[in-house]
């Protein structure tokens, strides 16, 4: 990805915008062009709920380019409040305190930057829900 594709995907990345099949109601994130459940191409943009639960997770310890500035991070399979499943990176949580079923909510965080003089890319990560 380049700065320009980051810009292209920013709305989806900032606000968890996916698509919903108008025919059968299936929801997908990231977007796709055809419903894989019923085959319809009649898909509309939809903003996904920002809260959900951790279904499963793992901790990435072999850090790939762009995410290698700090420490291992957790990637979780999250089921959002409407049942849609997505992958999300977790933040604001000690790695040994993550557990299946943990309630999480989306927040905007820095993902990476193109060096010290380059652009900063923001996106959604998931953190344990703030107290209500």
């Amino acid at each position, binding site marked *: *990805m380049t700065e320009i594709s*980051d810009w292209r*995907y920013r709305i989806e*990345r900032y606000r968890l915008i996916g698509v919903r099949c108008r025919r059968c109601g299936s929801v*997908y994130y*990231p977007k796709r062009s055809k419903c*894989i459940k019923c085959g319809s191409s009649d898909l509309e943009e939809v903003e996904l709920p920002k809260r959900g639960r951790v279904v*499963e*997770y*793992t*901790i*990435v*310890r*072999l*850090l*790939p*380019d*762009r*995410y*290698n500035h700090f420490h291992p*991070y957790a*990637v979780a*399979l999250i089921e959002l409040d409407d049942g849609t*499943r*997505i*992958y*999300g*990176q977790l933040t604001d949580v000690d790695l040994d305190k993550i557990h299946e079923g943990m309630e999480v909510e989306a927040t905007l965080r820095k*993902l990476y930057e193109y060096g010290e003089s380059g652009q900063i890319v923001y*996106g959604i990560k998931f953190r344990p829900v703030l107290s209500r």
Partner: protein
Amino acid sequence: MEVSLLGIPVIAGYGVIPIREYWDKDVVSLAINAVQNLVKSTGLKDFDAIYVGNMLSKYYEEQASISVHLADELGLEDVYALDVECGDASGAYAVLEAIKDVLSGESKIVLAGGVEKSTDELPHRLYRGTSLSEDIFLVDYIGLTNLVNHAIALKMYIKRYNVDKADITYLSVLDHENASKARHAYFRFPIKLDTALNSPPVADPLTLFDISPNIDGAAFLLITTDDIAKEYNLNYVKVLGYGYSVNRTRFYERFDPTTLTAAKRASQQAFKRAGINTSELDFIEIHDSTTIAGVLALESIGVHGSGTAAKYIRSGVHRLDGELPINTFGGLKARGNPLGATGAYAIAEGVIQILGEAGGNQVKDAKIGLIHSMNGFDLSSIVFILGGD
């Protein structure tokens, strides 16, 4: 079995190089070395087509179109040269391209295989590179790596079937045992289960010994018809069947994440084309890029029921001297996983077995073998069934 106008597709030669770090070679020279071995052993050097499987040279050393450079180095002129990319199944898909080419009658003698050169790269670029067959949106914005799917599938599998992780990791012990005898393997030493279980975590709960090394290698096969092979006095192995399929690319959209649906469909096609079933197999090469991938592959191709493969592996039935040997030269875990070349190595190993040239790794009476190769975590899978004459 597909029968062409001119004969039965066969693999009549192979050339592999030992899998290791090659500080003195780039991607094209690695391919040349493997091809030279093949040329030396078969005596054939005029190919009608060459298919070169490779995953990451455009990202690593930024060399595109390896096949035309290989053709140039080999002094070939009116050759059909094509690069084939399919993640870590590239080498296997390249071989299928060759088979289809021969079946159609377009080509008579085809060179196909794969090459990968990873070891010049710095760690963080390696870990991104191996993740590039995933949806780049997830790689960039979630920090997804190729191991994430394996790790989460492992957790789901253990919970669903109440399996002991040690039984799954045991596959690496079996692999190492076989690789310790194999000349072209990377890890040529046996390991203890304890060592494997206590190795550092890489994508919890996967540890270092649950995953395969992405290291340099090149392997090529000679594909032709039985008639032509006989003409040149070459020993050959028949391609009895093959199958291929894809799975949902986003792991979390899969209906059953612990079944490798593409591997399942590909193997069903292959068995149908070959007209055989699992009980007739003498050995299997599965794509264990991680131990869990290997375990799931065994189940998905129909050798064991869901949730049971790990305990069979632990029981010893799949050892070299067991009922149904798997990964006879160490599989991806111990023989090594040079990404774009891996599938070609697995096919070459199948050929070596059936030709009886496996030396210390020889499976007794190896007549029919199944080769499975996979892109990522079953993004796509391809299966070959090879048989002796």
